[in-house]
């Protein structure tokens, strides 16, 4: 392989052994390339002096103490969330299917509520559209509770991954879920103060759907 001055940068960038060997040969006869190569290699030699290999037994003592605390906390969590552990034994695709069924039930109930409004009373037709009756509200809340429960199970499954979000993608998912949880909590507060508002209920459903999708993506991440 023949290498010329113009190939210097490419050879240093790509670091192909054959090309680097050819560059070494070329540098023997070319002062400019020789200087470049020497400076380049000098940097590598100096870099090795930044390596530190001090023994730090005290650090292991600290780590060990934290690991023991973590193991203890994990055991306690395990006891508290025994149902979640059972759920984890259930295949992931079945869990997603259960969450999807619950979502479907919630969507159908919401649609039914909007079409099956009861006696109008003194409210105007426009206001009536926005308000839910007591019966439909109860049905919505039941369906919503089932859906929320399914999502919480998914969240429990994704929690270990999120707690150890060691990739930027997982960290992003974690932040997105935090934002979603805050928005859901806010929307729930508003819905509790205005229980018959169908628009708020729809917003809440949309946010739960987004949370479900996000959790599913987290679970799919390796």
């Amino acid at each position: 392989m023949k290498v010329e001055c113009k190939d210097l940068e490419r050879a240093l960038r790509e670091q192909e052994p054959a090309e680097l060997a050819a560059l070494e040969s070329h540098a023997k006869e070319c002062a400019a390339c020789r200087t470049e190569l020497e400076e380049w290699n000098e940097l590598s030699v100096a870099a090795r002096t930044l390596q530190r290999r001090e023994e730090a037994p005290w650090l292991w003592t600290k780590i060990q103490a934290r690991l023991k605390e973590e193991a203890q906390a994990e055991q306690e969590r395990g006891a508290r969330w025994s149902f979640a552990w059972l759920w984890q034994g259930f295949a992931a695709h079945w869990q997603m299917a259960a969450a999807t069924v619950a979502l479907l039930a919630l969507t159908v109930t919401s649609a039914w509520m909007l079409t099956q409004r009861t006696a109008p009373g003194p409210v105007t037709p426009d206001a009536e559209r926005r308000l839910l009756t007591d019966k439909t509200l109860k049905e919505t809340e039941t369906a919503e509770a089932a859906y929320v429960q399914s999502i919480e199970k998914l969240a429990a499954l994704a929690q270990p991954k999120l707690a150890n979000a060691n990739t930027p993608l997982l960290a992003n998912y974690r932040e997105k879920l935090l934002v979603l949880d805050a928005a859901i909590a806010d929307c729930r507060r508003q819905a509790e103060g205005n229980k018959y508002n169908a628009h708020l209920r729809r917003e809440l459903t949309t946010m739960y759907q987004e949370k479900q999708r996000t959790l599913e993506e987290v679970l799919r991440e390796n």
Partner: protein
Amino acid sequence: MYIEGVIGTQPFVKERSLPDPRESAPRQSESTRPAGEVSLAEAYAGGELGAFEQLYKLHGARMKSVAWNLLGNETDAEDAVQEAFLKAYRGRGNFQGQASLATWLHRIVVNTCLDARRRAKRHPEDEAIEPETPDALHPSSGTPHHPLRMALEKSVARLGAKQRTAFVLFEVEGFSHAEIAAMLKISEAASKNRLFEAKRELREMLKRTE
């Protein structure tokens, strides 16, 4: 008892469905992995604290060195190693054995350091201004003297995160581009590119300080 020694390194299995240039690299299966590492990996996956002690003995010093060079001081480096071991404990269920434990642990510590740097950027009042000079603080560190060392250390601290990480892992710690690619989830070509950019920038910085 686990067998101590050099643990082979292989890239992680690809995470996304996008084409992965590392796909063609050979994978390390349990059958080709040293028996000591297999048993250590099993003990690690089982959350045995003894396995973590063994991992610390094998990789702790190198992890701390990586963290020190990425964060610029010993205290933050020790915090990062501690945090990395906790993350490794919490995330042991995600270790599927496609990568070596060494690559896995270093990947965690590198990500921990990058997170710490991002946090420090958001709170610049907490960020260290200059890297510590280990010879002054730890005269027994035994690092060989080199005329470029002090200037190089300061210059490395001024590199961007990507270039700095590639430089520290390859030139300082001696990881291969395949290992760096696996740790940072990039291609080997990207790792080589980052290293080249880092060295070019360092050379310019060093020339300006001469």
